[in-house]
């Protein structure tokens, strides 16, 4: 019967049309956030977590865009007063010749220099805080980084004049967490003094994080 012969092709056509409609709906959705869209879509099998298995079977941290997770190497680990752990290391980018300091704490962050670490300065660091942005509204504030071999110490100077030596690891990673009482009193990190192995001042880095 002619209508029976029509049925199967019609069903297939309908299925193709519906699948195309779903794809179009998803593609449309992908651009709604961006004024300048570079969007691409990647299907994921597992919910994104802190670490993922690499091709060779070992676990690597999940890093930012265009970061080579497999190149990550840790320089040191620290804990703040609340017990939160921070692992500081380095990794490369895949989209440009750049090396980055990586901080795996409550979140994971990275900041890069081109073409190598310390191309611009003897320390590479990331300042992080929770809450705010006004200093008095912050519930935690940290400075995490790695230092070039010539660096002997990093002194964090707060807005009340207090000076704190950042804790160093043997791998030249350093870490400082603002005391909770200072945060509650609106004290913020004013600057860092980077000292050489002999104690000579190599660089003063303004932080000026009052806002």
């Amino acid at each position: 019967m002619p209508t029976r012969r029509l049925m199967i092709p019609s069903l297939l056509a309908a299925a193709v049309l519906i699948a195309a409609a779903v794809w179009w709906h998803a593609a449309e959705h992908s651009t709604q956030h961006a004024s300048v869209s570079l969007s691409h879509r990647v299907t994921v099998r597992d919910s994104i977590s802190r670490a993922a298995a690499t091709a060779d079977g070992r676990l690597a941290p999940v890093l930012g865009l265009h970061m080579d997770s497999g190149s990550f190497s840790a320089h040191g680990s620290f804990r703040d007063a609340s017990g939160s752990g921070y692992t500081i290391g380095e990794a490369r980018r895949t989209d440009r010749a750049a090396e980055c300091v990586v901080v795996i704490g409550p979140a994971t962050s990275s900041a890069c220099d081109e073409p190598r670490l310390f191309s611009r300065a003897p320390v590479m660091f990331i300042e992080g805080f929770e809450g705010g942005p006004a200093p008095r509204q912050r519930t935690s504030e940290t400075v995490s980084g790695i230092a070039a071999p010539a660096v002997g110490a990093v002194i964090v100077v707060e807005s009340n004049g207090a000076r704190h030596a950042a804790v160093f690891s043997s791998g030249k990673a350093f870490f400082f967490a603002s005391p909770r009482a200072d945060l509650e009193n609106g004290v913020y990190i004013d600057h860092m003094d980077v000292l050489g192995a002999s104690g000579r001042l190599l660089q003063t880095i303004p932080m000026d994080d009052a806002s």
Partner: protein
Amino acid sequence: MARRQPLTKVDRPNEQTYPEVLVQLCRLWVALGVACVLAFVGARAAEGDYTQVAEYFRAYVAPTQGGASGYSGSCEHYIVNEADWPGASYARVTYIDTSGNWHYTVKSTSSPLDDVLTVSQSAALGRTKEYCQNASNATVYLLSCSFKIYIFSNCA
């Protein structure tokens, strides 16, 4: 005495006059409707969760100026916030909830700067937008910022 004809033939005379082709077409349309529903459900189920990357801001910005993405929907979570600028001066990226509170804020003089959350960390914040800002004191520079967002495909 003449025998009476069955009532069906008298009261519903058209029933027996439907062409067979109309009956078949009716069945065809019902089957098409069912197939459409099944295909839609199947296509959505096969789609799976996915991530998307896009630039949400690009402009020359003075100190304290910046740009933000739109707020995430109920079935999606921002998981990466990246700022790219010439470096040397400070930039800052953060996640802002619907009450205006900042979360997981990071700042650096080294570019690009990435701030990465897990899906569960981002979900715990509820709906968020990403924000990037020139955090220097005096330098105007070109700031471009991108997000990665995790989208649950099977989400009401």
